């Protein structure tokens, strides 16, 4: 691949949580007001963050109604504990952490086994998988369904870590905090999750067999 092609790849910059910006300042002001009991400020925070929290919970529960209930519970708890949030720039990861706690509580209540991953060094990149084509960037309904299935096949912890990174844009350090893991383990688990996902989807992409 030519350097020009590679530089085009680097041109993609997605926003990440935690970066200093005027949006962050606005959110800090909202948090200050919400802590003082301003319902309008809390409502704004809810409207900004609840879609991401719901999406994360739906990916964990794989059930819309359960995600509904858990999203509301997340914000009820957040409302009562806003004063406990030390770093206002980490509101999103804090909320997602509460959401995951609620998910885990729900699983424990139902007696569902939670698998625990092992800590290993990050493996080297695999060269065997084909490279996606530009056409593969389009997520059509079929591929969306396949992606949901592939995500659902990941172990819960691995799925959570992956989604916190690729869907919610959390920094690796924030994911380590949410998951209670070391930084190397976060990188390792996300990498393995990606490889699993790619292996599952590669056959359906480009010339790989998708109709």
């Amino acid at each position, binding site marked *: *691949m030519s*350097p020009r*092609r*590679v*530089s085009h*790849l*680097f041109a*993609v*910059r*997605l926003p*990440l949580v935690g970066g200093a910006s005027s949006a962050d300042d606005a959110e800090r002001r909202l948090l200050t007001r919400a802590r*003082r*009991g*301003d*319902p309008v400020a*809390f*409502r704004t925070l*809810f*409207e900004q963050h*609840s*879609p*991401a929290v*719901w*999406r994360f919970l739906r990916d964990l529960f794989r059930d*819309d109604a359960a*995600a*509904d*209930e858990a*999203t*509301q519970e997340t*914000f*009820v708890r957040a*409302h*009562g504990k806003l004063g406990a949030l030390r770093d206002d720039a980490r509101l999103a990861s804090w909320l997602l952490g509460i959401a995951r706690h609620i998910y885990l509580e729900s699983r424990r209540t139902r007696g569902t086994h939670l698998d625990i991953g092992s800590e290993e060094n*990050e493996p*080297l*990149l695999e*060269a065997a*998988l*084909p*490279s*996606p084509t530009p056409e*593969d*960037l*389009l*997520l059509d309904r079929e591929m*969306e369904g396949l*992606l949901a299935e592939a995500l659902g096949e990941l172990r819960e912890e691995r799925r959570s870590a992956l989604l916190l*990174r*690729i*869907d919610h*844009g959390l*920094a*690796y350090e924030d994911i380590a905090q949410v998951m209670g893991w070391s930084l190397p383990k976060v*990188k390792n688990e*996300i*990498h393995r999750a*990606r490889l699993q*996902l*790619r292996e599952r989807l590669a056959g359906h992409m480009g010339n790989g067999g998708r109709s």
Partner: protein
Amino acid sequence: MSTPCRESELDALLAGELSAEEAERVSAHAATCATCTRALAWLRTERGWMAQRARRMPARPALRFEALEAKLRPASVARPPHREHRGWVAMMGAAAAVAFMALSMAPRSHSTSHGGFSSEDGWSEGMVSIARVPACMDPSVEAVARVEATFGACLLASPARPLP
């Protein structure tokens, strides 16, 4: 990037999380490494998928604030601003009552020279001043009643001052 290639570094590069120096190093390596180029294509695809998926999220009743509001404690959501409002009204009422008492006890004058209110001369014409409201200086019961009915507006911008 020295071998072995680390996907987390490529990921951080795409996310704009690397310093300029690190980004330069990783970019230079990736430009010549087929494995990293392929990994970058996957990373871009995944991010694109996630963005499309997020945009297609269905509207859910649970994401309406009204649905949540009932579960929040009314005490911690609605009361503080209400309390503030009530406190402000009470404070204004008390201030108005004190000012009205001071006016009632002050020596009366029908002079229109306003000499006794020179300290208010600097006030804006747009602000209501007791010194320029004859009704406030009228000792009759009717006038007092009228002032009582409107004293909040009358006294709001005119702190009571003892006459010299």
